[in-house]
């Protein structure tokens, strides 16, 4: 392994600009003549707009224009599209209400867009927005998914009776019911997967610009997938063809899913920039992010796990209600279905699985994919019920899992819920984690903690997830309205340096380094001579972007395939220059040589010949050395692993402290271990956040109670510990590079480990359930209910 090749912890190429303040984020961009937009939003969860009067605001200082939903409707613009269609069990398509960028006469969540004020300064735009007069007739609202289906619940959409978006099933219910009926033991669980707010540190922003000389539009935006935004906004909302619309996603400060979707503000500033004939910038304030960025999770689930007398799983039945919010966000419908229910076999040989998912509308911000998307919900459910089953069966947590694991030699493994896991070794991951975490010494640590008055617990999570989101044919058959391949372009310059264009997008993942390693390793050129370009539809041929841990597993392979083409062409050139047969040319360490001789040409000599084709096989070969590849894999990528969490609980306050967190994960082949570890750190922190700290809370009227960092508890440094990480890598046979995704596993694997640890700590009190987040008052209340205070206390 070279110092910069595959497997090396190469320090990141992108860091220099971020460390010196030279990053270029959307809000850092200022265009000549730029104006500023402020969006007037609904303070009500549900209301009819009876009157909207912008006349005094229009006269305010600095105001250039004010637009409302009627102006957009007059231009016959489309609504924000949904990219995935789910069908209900009766065959009917999901309910898909219109989602205009600016509402016309009814608001359906706090934060819904009503009007945009465009002014010379942001201060003036905000001052003017206060002068817009809106008469609202407030209507009853519903926020909680568990209550949305009730017959008396307020209705979000007339076209979706009972607030039902779809009623979807997978598996054979009768078979599963029969297995449950005949089982030795059935464990039942009811749980909530708490609603979360992604909170990437960079608030969303968008700058729209219209070029009146060409009629072209440019949108700079905080996006994980600029080509997808171009497609959705151009084709469905603004009706601008691709060649007239450029979307640039420059440096983006974190996404975690929330920056996948096409948002109203992008369409508004792009459309309005032509109306006012000046560039328009909009940047969210954090309080705006809370009420407009798509939220995550928000499931309510009941499940049954049937076992035989040895604890062997026989069948798993799941019934889930999933909150969609007020409108369908870009990928929302697929999250609680194909990203969730297809994973319900987990790492176990459960032969029969059935799931029913009812998606509901509520008067809340749309819910869509957030780091892990569906898979954290599945993993949390499985690992909670398996841990509960072990307690009910009187079996050790590790032992029950061992009895049910899919064994390494059983891969590829066809699950009862559609997926074929290509590889893995759940048992190997767990055994390694047990050693690392000193599981055998745990009972002694529990006793020692008890002597200090603390409850100590250890929690398990053994998981697999499906990522590397593609194959297009599969997702298409499941309702996706787009393909999910990836594009890579490798441009070899005359002197042998290389620019790589990728359709994925890095917003923290370090693609500029990882992809450069791939290229440096394969082409045998110094990593300094490789640059990676992403995030600009005018530069990159095409792409589907970054989410679902797909960048390396799909995008990396596309680059690899483009390099194959480059090498194949270069071999032809080398054969010509070396006067040898193409079949005799060997490419190694950046040199083309004739097999069995010392005749060779350096990579740079070949590239120069390609661009200065004086001595060149010009009748058979075009000049130049640049190749493009699209890659559409045949299967998902299946990372997995074992997470063990150890906590201590202070019974006086209910505070849970994470003491140790151990993760042993399977990433297949690792390109840059430093970057991969960093991805796990961040994911685990978000998972611990979900388990112990983070809760998005709406009140009964649909008002967001946790609308700022003053009330929404973000994990901070002192909430966490340093993590203990290791890998147990099984190369992925279904991936040409042997790689698996790594971006989401931390958030997928960790929450059940944490909650299982909390329950384990409290189990001596007979406590069997704590909901996420396990906040101090909740834990204290559980302890108090289990152990009533003495009269004197």
């Amino acid at each position: 392994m070279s110092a910069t090749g595959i497997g090396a912890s190469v320090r990141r190429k992108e860091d220099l600009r971020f460390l010196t303040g030279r990053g270029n984020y959307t809000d850092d961009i200022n265009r000549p003549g730029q104006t500023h937009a402020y969006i007037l939003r609904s303070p009500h969860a549900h209301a009819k707009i009876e009157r909207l009067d912008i006349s005094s605001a229009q006269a305010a200082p600095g105001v250039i224009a004010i637009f409302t939903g009627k102006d957009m409707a007059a231009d016959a613009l489309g609504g924000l599209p949904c990219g995935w269609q789910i069908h209900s069990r009766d065959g009917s398509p999901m309910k898909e209400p219109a989602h205009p960028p600016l509402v016309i006469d009814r608001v359906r969540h706090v934060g819904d867009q009503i009007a945009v004020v465009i002014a010379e300064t942001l201060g003036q735009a905000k001052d003017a927005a206060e002068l817009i007069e809106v008469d609202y007739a407030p209507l009853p609202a519903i926020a909680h998914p568990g209550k949305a289906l009730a017959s008396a619940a307020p209705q979000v959409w007339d076209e979706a009776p009972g607030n039902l978006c779809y009623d979807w099933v997978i598996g054979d219910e009768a078979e599963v019911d029969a297995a449950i009926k005949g089982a030795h033991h059935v464990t039942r669980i009811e749980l909530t997967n708490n609603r979360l707010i992604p909170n990437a540190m960079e608030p969303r922003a968008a700058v729209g610009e219209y070029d009146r000389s060409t009629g072209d539009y440019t949108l700079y935006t905080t996006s994980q997938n600029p080509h997808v935004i171009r497609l959705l906004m151009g084709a469905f909302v603004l009706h601008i063809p691709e060649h007239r619309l450029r979307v640039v996603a420059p440096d983006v400060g974190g996404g975690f899913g929330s920056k996948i979707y096409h948002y109203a503000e992008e369409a508004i500033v792009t459309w309005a920039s032509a109306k006012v004939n000046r560039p328009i910038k909009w940047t969210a304030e954090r309080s705006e992010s809370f009420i407009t960025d798509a939220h995550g999770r928000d499931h309510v689930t009941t499940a049954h796990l049937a076992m035989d007398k040895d604890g062997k799983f026989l069948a798993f039945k799941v019934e889930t209600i999933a909150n969609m919010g007020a409108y369908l966000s870009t990928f929302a419908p697929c999250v609680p279905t194909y990203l969730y229910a297809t994973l319900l076999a987990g790492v176990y040989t459960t032969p029969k699985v059935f799931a029913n998912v009812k998606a509901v509308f509520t008067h809340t911000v749309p819910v869509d994919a957030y780091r892990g998307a569906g898979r954290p919900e599945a993993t949390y459910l499985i690992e909670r019920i398996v841990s509960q089953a072990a307690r009910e069966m009187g079996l050790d947590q590790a032992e029950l899992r061992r009895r049910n694991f899919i064994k390494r030699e059983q891969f590829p493994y066809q699950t009862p819920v559609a997926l074929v896991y290509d590889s893995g070794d759940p048992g190997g991951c767990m055994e390694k984690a047990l050693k690392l975490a000193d599981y055998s010494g745990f009972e002694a640590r529990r006793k020692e903690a008890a002597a200090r008055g603390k409850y100590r617990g250890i929690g398990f999570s053994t998981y697999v997830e499906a990522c590397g989101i593609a194959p297009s044919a599969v997702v298409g058959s499941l309702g996706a309205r787009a393909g999910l391949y990836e594009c890579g372009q490798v441009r070899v310059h005359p002197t042998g340096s290389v620019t790589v264009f990728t359709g994925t997008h890095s917003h923290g993942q370090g693609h500029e380094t990882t992809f450069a390693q791939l290229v440096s390793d394969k082409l045998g050129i110094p990593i300094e001579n490789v640059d990676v370009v992403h995030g600009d539809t005018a530069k990159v041929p095409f792409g589907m972007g970054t989410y679902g841990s797909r960048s390396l597993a799909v995008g990396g392979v596309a680059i690899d395939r483009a390099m194959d083409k480059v090498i194949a062409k270069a071999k032809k050139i080398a054969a010509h220059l070396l006067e040898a047969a193409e079949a005799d040319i060997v490419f190694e360490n950046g040199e083309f040589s004739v097999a069995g001789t010392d005749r060779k040409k350096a990579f740079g000599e070949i590239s120069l010949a390609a661009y200065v084709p004086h001595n060149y096989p010009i009748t058979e070969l075009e000049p130049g050395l640049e190749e493009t590849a699209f890659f559409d894999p045949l299967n998902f990528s299946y990372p997995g692993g074992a997470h063990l969490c150890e906590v201590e609980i202070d019974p006086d306050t209910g505070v849970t402290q994470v003491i140790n967190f151990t993760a042993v994960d399977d990433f297949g082949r690792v390109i840059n271990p430093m970057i991969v570890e960093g991805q796990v750190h961040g994911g685990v922190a978000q998972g611990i956040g979900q388990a112990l700290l983070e809760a998005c809370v709406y009140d009964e009227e649909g008002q967001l109670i946790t609308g700022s960092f003053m009330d929404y508890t973000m994990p901070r440094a002192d909430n966490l510990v340093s993590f203990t990480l290791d890998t147990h890598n099984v190369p992925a046979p279904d991936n040409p590079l042997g790689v698996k995704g790594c971006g989401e596993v931390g958030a997928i694997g960790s929450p059940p480990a944490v909650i299982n640890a909390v329950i384990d700590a409290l189990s001596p009190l007979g406590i069997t359930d704590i909901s996420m987040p396990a906040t101090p008052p909740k834990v204290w209340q559980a302890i108090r209910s289990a152990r009533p205070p003495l009269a004197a206390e």
Partner: protein
Amino acid sequence: MYNFEYNRPASLDDALKALSSGDEVKLMAGGMTLIPTLKQRLAQPSKLVDLSGVAELKGITVEGNAVVIGAMTTHATVAASAEVAAKIPALTKLAHGIGDPQVRNRGTLGGSISNNDPAADYPAALMALGATVTTNKRQLAADDFFAGMFTTALEEDEIVLKVSFPIPEKAAYAKFAQPASRYALVGVFVAKTAGGARVAVTGAGEDGVFRVAAFEDALSKNFSAAALDGIAIPAEGLNSDIHGAADYRAHLIGVMAKRALQAAG
């Protein structure tokens, strides 16, 4: 933020003149609460009078049996003060636990108590230590200064100059932070003073900081955590929100009081 006129007087006299120069004139100390409030457009002053240039409002001295701290002294300065650490280490700890390092570099004692946020830390110290607030017009006992949530006895044209903290025999502050904002969900300051034990609670009360007579009676007889065994705090009058219902806060008052007593030794 609405716009306003900014004014930074260099003396107390000039500050007082500026304060009376019109309607809607607002004083700014460290600005750690005021600026976020302005950003949310929850206040619309015509003029802001920034007190940071008034040198006579800064500084820490030991005067007789009291530590006297100027209103514009920052939390970081109090936390780093050798005099405070030697005389009232509980105050060092309290100042060190306010907000975060950046807030402590700007936020001030005078700003904190004049705002009287019901979850601020300093009000508990003033009440428990029996501090005296000196303004440009008068001296006020802490018990008379705080007048309910975000309300004090200060008049329109009144500026806090300094606070005099009598040095207690023993004292300690224990805070249970609201996990998101890091303000006090419950903060309990206990002090053994010449006049008996004093206990003040911040964060929990619907009307802001308050003293706990039942604890003070018990501790005046026996200043130890054990003395509080069996004394329950009623939940009535305490805050309830997503971070803790009133009964939880009531319980935490006892827990934090005991922890403070253990720390006080």
